[in-house]
């Protein structure tokens, strides 16, 4: 029995697994619908996960441009390749693990190679769910980053979804969006986080160490910076929402102005943000101490987010402890 079949039987894809407050925020679904109202080319494809991927908003308002493909991720991505070749801009939706690993060859041949404007939108990034190992995407960034022509973006939260979405839509080519369903609404005021493909955002400026993070780990990195500050270590926090292309120039600049660089990601330590930053440091011969906070090379069980972050040592506290220990052992002699 396939994972998709199991998913269909369990009813995991209805709203009972999305908190009510998340449904009220739904930044992604609203951004997609708003854009589609303005652009006739935008079509929305789903694989039996409309509520979980916030695309029921699109389905209900623009039904002729909404295509429920059923539990058929491979066919969905292939069909999206056909639609894009016919002039549409298809947005395909599922959980991160099913929109990447399950359909990797379809993406390579029908999306990435022909450089089509197909947008692959995944939810449940990294270790984030009680649904267990089948629903945890710990290798999706590695997979998508290694595809030529593919752009990989992970906003830090609802406050950045609008700007990341706009950039993904404007890019004339394939994009993988790694999204976390958040329980908070984006702040409509001046706290919205801007975004440019290929650019990182400095969220906080410090002097001693730079913590480069993506997705929900930006918030954990902020927490780590608070803890480190109390311990006398001043930390810069950078939101690396553009995982590919990476902001190589910013990494180089941070390496020159800080003594220690730490990456923090909710993803395997193989092939994700940490690997990408390490490549820049090694290839440019940057003289800086480097540490990585990531999921070790292991599969995980399902549990609530807070439990999983704690178990896999991904919380702000763990980031702070690791950073401090590297700082004291290797930098501040």
């Amino acid at each position, binding site marked *: 029995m396939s994972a998709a079949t199991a998913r269909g039987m369990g009813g995991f894809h209805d709203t009972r697994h999305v908190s009510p407050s998340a449904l009220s925020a739904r930044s992604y679904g609203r951004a997609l619908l708003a854009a589609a109202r303005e652009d006739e080319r935008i079509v929305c494809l789903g694989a039996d996960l409309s509520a979980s991927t916030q695309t029921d908003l699109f389905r209900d308002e623009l039904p002729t441009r909404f295509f429920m493909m059923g539990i058929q991720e491979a*066919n969905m991505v292939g069909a999206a390749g056909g639609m894009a070749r016919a002039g*549409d801009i298809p947005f395909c939706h599922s959980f991160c693990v099913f929109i990447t690993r399950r359909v990797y060859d379809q993406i390579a041949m029908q999306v990435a190679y022909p450089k089509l404007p197909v947008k692959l939108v995944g939810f449940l990034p990294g270790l984030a769910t009680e649904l267990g190992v089948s629903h945890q995407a710990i290798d999706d960034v590695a997979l998508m980053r290694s595809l030529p022509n593919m752009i990989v973006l992970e906003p830090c939260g609802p406050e950045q979804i609008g700007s990341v979405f706009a950039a993904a839509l404007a890019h004339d080519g394939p994009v993988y969006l790694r999204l976390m369903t958040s329980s908070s609404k984006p702040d409509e005021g001046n706290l919205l986080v801007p975004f440019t493909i290929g650019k990182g955002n400095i969220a906080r400026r410090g002097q001693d160490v730079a913590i480069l993070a993506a997705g929900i780990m930006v918030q954990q990195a902020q927490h780590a910076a608070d803890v480190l500050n109390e311990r006398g270590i001043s930390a810069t926090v950078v939101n690396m929402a553009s995982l590919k292309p990476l902001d190589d120039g910013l990494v180089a600049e941070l390496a020159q102005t800080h003594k220690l660089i730490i990456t923090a990601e909710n993803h395997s330590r193989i092939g994700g943000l940490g690997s990408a930053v390490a490549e820049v440091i090694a290839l440019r011969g940057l003289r800086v101490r480097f540490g990585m906070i990531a999921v070790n090379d292991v599969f995980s069980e399902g549990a609530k987010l807070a439990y999983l972050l704690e178990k896999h040592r991904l919380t702000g506290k763990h980031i702070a402890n690791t950073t401090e220990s590297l700082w004291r052992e290797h930098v501040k002699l």
Partner: protein
Amino acid sequence: MTRHVPPINDLENIALSLRRSVVSMVDSVRVGYLLQGLGAADIFTALFFSELNLRTDDPNWSDRDRFILSTAHNTALLYATFAHRGYFPISRLETYTRDGSELEVNASERMGTIIEATCGSLGQGLSVAVGMALSLRRRGSEARVYVVLGDGELQEGQVWEAALSAGSFGLDNLCMIVDRNYLQAEGHSDRVVKMGPIPEKFESFGWNATEVDGNNLTELLDALRSARATKGKPFLINALTKTGAGVPFLEGQLSHVALLSPEDAQRALAHLEGQGK
């Protein structure tokens, strides 16, 4: 729309020309799929020289009929078809599979829009066709989508996802032709995986289906007419082809990558030359 169907003699002569090109191409570089190309030559003739609504001087015409070769490796025949149809000079066939040539063993979109999708990783072409058919229908285009799959390719699970999808969406602008030659890399396809009846399978997935002699142009053209007239359902043509068709000493041979001795290549060409009407 009244469609111009060329006289059958003309089409038979075109099929002979395609077969001659296939033999010459594969013989000159010792690479490619000879028996399959000969077997499918009538399908390609019926499609490209009668059925498909194309503009060779405007390959990007938005209302063109789409053609996808899901088994992308049967390209000696595909390139010969493009050349004889007028997309590029016949002399370009001499570059087939040579280093640096765009005429690769597996056709890719680096050749431009005439390759509507990069296939070769088997099982994907029907899904792409479903997407194209959905988009064209949404836009109210009269363009139709044609996709050719090999029978061995039906072993891929994605084909059945796409078949279910096409039936469920009622895509009557979609026509799939299965090149039923019973040949795959491992040998006789039914000895690899028992496929059972193909048309009945598709009918149960919501398609209209028919079975024809895939080396009989009249039957193929009739089936394509039925496909065009069908409303509310996608259409399957299970085309029973003979590998090596048109060259008696090659017909029915089941070798995935057959190559001929120079003498046999000359014999094959001589036979095909002698068949013109």
